[in-house]
């Protein structure tokens, strides 16, 4: 087997990255992620590791590759290895329940990152971005720009996977913000992307074909921006802010590409999930529990913020994508 070295690296990457050595007096935190398949998750796991280091704790990392069963096993392994706390980005809001129970039974405090469990009847803390609120304020900001221009706008929204609550909430935020400004904005196209770049590219191209006068575009995730930019370029509609044919662009996440587009003056607004803040809350909750402090609220909400041309300089270092 010539492939063995590579295989080994992959497996160790996917299954468990051992943290530092295990001195007896240091805390050990288990970090479990459902997936690492987007930059957002990578940034999150890095931020959590950094928080652990800040608290002088060691950590184990496990990635479940979208498999809820595997995630459950990985948590059991953590418990068997005697971790002091668990930070988890779960597969979904239901499969997390047995995991919480297992952690409760073992008396290990658990923080849940990015998703809210379906049932509240156990001991845990969850940290989520307010997807609805953030996209609402992002699109509101875009709508005010549209209003200020004094022209009517035709809008397109790129929708994520409709099986994902976050995608659904972002769409709701968009819908409500646009409804507040129905006098200037008319939604002419809703493009389902299933979180797939190729579908996104085809969808935007087709929408621009059907409605060449689209000049307001919101993408439910920043990672679809390459597709948006390609499609706009082909339609000769990708121009910087200030250009008469500029399409008002907004996104969600706060990734590196969005940061660059802001810097270069193409992107008007981006709803940022404050990864650093969320990860800080998640790890802090563990430390509090270990010190016997019970949380004030079970669900902590990251209000996030909208980054745009006017506040870019002040808030850039809170935007996780700027670090990449």
């Amino acid at each position, binding site marked *: 087997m010539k492939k063995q070295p590579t295989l080994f690296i992959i497996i160790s990457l996917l299954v468990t990255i051992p943290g530092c050595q295990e001195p007896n007096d240091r805390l050990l935190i288990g970090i479990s992620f459902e997936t690492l398949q987007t930059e957002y998750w990578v940034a999150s796991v890095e931020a959590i590791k950094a928080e652990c280091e800040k608290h002088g704790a060691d950590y184990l990392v496990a990635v479940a590759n979208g498999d809820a069963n595997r995630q459950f096993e990985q948590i059991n392994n953590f418990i068997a290895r005697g971790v002091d706390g668990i930070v988890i980005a779960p597969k979904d809001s239901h499969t997390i329940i047995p995991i919480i129970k297992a952690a409760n039974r073992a008396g290990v405090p658990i923080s849940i990152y990015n998703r809210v469990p379906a049932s509240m009847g156990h001991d845990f803390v969850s940290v989520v971005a307010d997807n609805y609120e953030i996209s609402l304020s992002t699109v509101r900001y875009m709508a005010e720009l549209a209003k200020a221009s004094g022209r009517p706008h035709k809008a397109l929204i790129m929708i994520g996977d409709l099986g994902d609550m976050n995608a659904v909430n972002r769409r709701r935020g968009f819908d409500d913000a646009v409804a507040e400004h129905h006098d200037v904005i008319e939604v002419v196209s809703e493009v389902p992307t299933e979180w797939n770049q190729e579908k996104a590219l085809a969808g935007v191209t087709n*929408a621009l074909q059907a409605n060449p006068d689209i000049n307001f575009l919101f993408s439910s995730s920043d990672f679809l921006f*390459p597709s948006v930019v390609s499609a706009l370029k082909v339609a000769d509609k990708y121009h910087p802010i200030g250009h008469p044919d500029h399409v008002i662009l907004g996104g969600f996440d706060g990734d590196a590409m969005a940061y660059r587009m802001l810097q270069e003056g193409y992107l008007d607004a981006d709803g940022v999930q404050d990864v650093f803040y969320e990860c800080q809350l998640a790890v802090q909750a563990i430390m509090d529990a270990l010190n016997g402090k019970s949380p004030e609220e079970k669900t902590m909400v990251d209000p996030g913020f909208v980054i745009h041309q006017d506040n870019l300089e002040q808030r850039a270092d809170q935007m996780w994508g700027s670090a990449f």
Partner: protein
Amino acid sequence: MTKLFTIVKRQGIIGLWLLLILGFSLASESFFTAQNLVNILIQASTLTIIAVGMTFVLLSAGIDLSFGSIMFLAGVAAGMLTTRGVGLGVAVPTILIIGLLFGLLNGLLIVRLRLIPFIVTLATFYMGRGLGLLLSDTRAINLPEAILQIGSSRILGVPVPVWIMILVVLIGHLILSRTVFGRYIYAVGHSKEKAAKAGLPVNRILIGTYAMGGLCAGVGGLVAIAQLGAVSPSFGLQSEFLAIAAAVLGGTSLFGGKGGIFPGTVVGAFTMQTIQNGLVIVNADPYLHQLVTGAVIFLIVWVDSRQNAKKKSLSLN
């Protein structure tokens, strides 16, 4: 509804495709325009190319679940090479070779270790994606303008992705229908045992089909990123299922030995892309998209199985 059924029954997938075009044209005037039809062609190019590769594999009674991973690896390789200043003259052949080698690896594992294709390619699906994630650090790679040029330039007024698609379809079709290798694929797909008894080099033929599959996935990946301009960590995910769906829609049997690229797979891929395109053009409810695609696949497979049942009972009596 009965009329629809009759048309589909008589004309098969081509009839259904024409019906869809007619329906969308009536629903929106911006559907049946030269520009939009060209758009459909461009958007269908990637799917058609990988579906051609999948047709080879399916005809041999195999399956390849690693197409998306091959596309992803090809994309990551393209990104790493071009962002380090390697010219397209080197990068493009390298990408194609990666696809070919990955396909060869699939074929070799299946033949030498005598494992079933489903399991082998499921394993290489994970390996390929894992390797791609490792190499790319799970970051999106933005590609230089030069690659986007491939996606957006035209030769004789026809976009380059469409040219590449035509070329792949043509070569694939000729190989299947005219060459010794192509005819052997049908024989092996019908029955490996019989093919071995007839003295055919079964293993070489099988490896060949997976190599063709891998190569097409590589080409498809290239054509896709040339349009996207970037490779994200989820690039290519689930492409294999779209490719299988397109081939099956076009009449290729999952049990091997039956079907073909032209018109079969090509029309299958065009049909799927027409649905995608048409639904966006008429601004259908986003929840409808997958429902409609699923319904069309169901309709075709149902009609096909009804016809097969009828043929079978005819031959019995």
